[in-house]
């Protein structure tokens, strides 16, 4: 028991690990922020493509479906290996000379865009068809109807599930360590090798939790607020 406590929680070990792990954790934060911005935009685009009307758009829709099916089914760790190790080996001018950070962002974006596309799509489908009909009958075209009537309602409804997916993404930034990005988990590993102590991992865990808690609370509150408002409307 004493050995266990010492290995994981020695106060000196924890304190000493903080700066080193924090150094790596900043990379997690950057990965997360860049990937989230990209995911939000790309997923919206793909969700819109999947909902396009008409026969002529079928190839585009098929492509969008293939993309989401593929990347929802593939483990992130595998995508990370293939992008970070595979793309450079192709020796193409642009695709192959990016930094590991860029490949990390790419992997996270590819996988999470697939999830978030589905979230957006559920939101778009939850808007009653009569809303679209009302907008079109006023003379708004397809794009205007989407932009001003459908999407604002759809996005409002999916904010809580979106935030949940982002909590997942936030944690999964640690997976990017496997391809050699020096983030929090990597620094924790270095620390444990240097000092024969797991305190680095504990510090990393604390960082992740500290980042997640406000996010999770915010999401919970948002859901509660909505429920309250909806109940008030029914009354």
């Amino acid at each position, binding site marked *: 028991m004493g050995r266990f406590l010492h290995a994981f929680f020695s106060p000196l070990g924890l304190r000493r690990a903080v700066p080193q792990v924090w150094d790596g954790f900043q990379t997690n934060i950057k990965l997360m922020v860049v990937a989230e911005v990209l995911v939000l935009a790309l997923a919206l685009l793909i969700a819109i493509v999947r909902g396009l009307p008409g026969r002529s758009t079928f190839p585009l829709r098929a492509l969008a479906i293939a993309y989401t099916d593929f990347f929802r089914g593939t483990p992130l760790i595998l995508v990370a290996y293939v992008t970070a190790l595979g793309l450079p080996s192709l020796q193409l001018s642009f695709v192959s000379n990016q930094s590991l950070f860029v490949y990390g962002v790419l992997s996270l974006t590819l996988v999470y865009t697939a999830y978030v596309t589905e979230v957006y799509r559920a939101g778009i489908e939850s808007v009653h068809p*009569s809303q679209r009909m009302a*907008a079109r009958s006023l*003379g708004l*075209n397809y794009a205007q109807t989407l932009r001003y009537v459908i999407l*604002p309602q759809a996005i409002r409804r999916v904010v809580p599930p979106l935030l949940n997916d982002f909590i997942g993404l936030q944690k999964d930034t640690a997976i990017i360590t496997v391809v050699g990005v020096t983030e929090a988990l990597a620094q924790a590993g270095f620390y444990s090798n240097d000092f024969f102590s797991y305190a680095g991992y504990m510090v990393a865990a604390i960082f992740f939790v500290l980042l997640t808690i406000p996010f999770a609370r915010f999401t919970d509150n948002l859901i509660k607020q909505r429920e309250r408002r909806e109940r008030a409307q029914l009354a």
Partner: protein
Amino acid sequence: MTENGHFVTLAGVSKRFGNNEVLHTIDLSVDLHQVVCLIGASGSGKSTLLRCLNLLEPVDAGTIVIDGQTITNGPVDVNVLRRKIGIVFQAFNLFPHMTVLQNITLAPRKARGLTKAQADAEARELLDRIGLVDKANEFPDRLSGGQQQRVAIVRALAMEPKLMLLDEITSALDPQLVSEVLNLVRELAQTGMTMILATHEMSFAQEVADKVCFLDAGVICEEGPPQQIFTAPKEPRTREFLSRIIEAGRL
């Protein structure tokens, strides 16, 4: 104006949903400034007919000419067509994420190209007419059903349509809210708006209509001036329908 003087002409219009023929070779004409009421049992095709008129539903056969333009074949810009035709639905269908003012000004700004200032001014004028200026910045869920439906009517009017289609616009309202909506429709009729309305309010139809059409299973079974239809219907089916309505105390 148009073909043989009519503002709206339907000739042989048919509409199917799968194997279900909902409209069967409908012929109908509406003159400028006329108010035409469609009556008929539930499922007789009133809503479908109105939705075909602004191409929310494509027709399977026949032609529809509105304001001199044949809309059922050839290249038709539906967005331009719909700007000429206002439609109001039973369920109001206001945009819940927008204020009353935003609901009214969205289409004038985006489809008619008005500036925000112009659109706001016009919308406030319309709201003033219906006594709801003080609700301009409220969201629809803060309004009563009658107020919401009047806003929906004004939202359609803000596009300055030449033709208004009203689909059972009082059916979802509590009885005490019906009259405020009907008053607005009556006013519109007095200003000369061309209107086609599907309604179950028989006494109102009798009062405002220039022509009443009785629809039965997708066919216009009988049409004529309201006095004739309501007091001396020729067709047995019309008589049967009206006697059922009278039994239900709605005439």
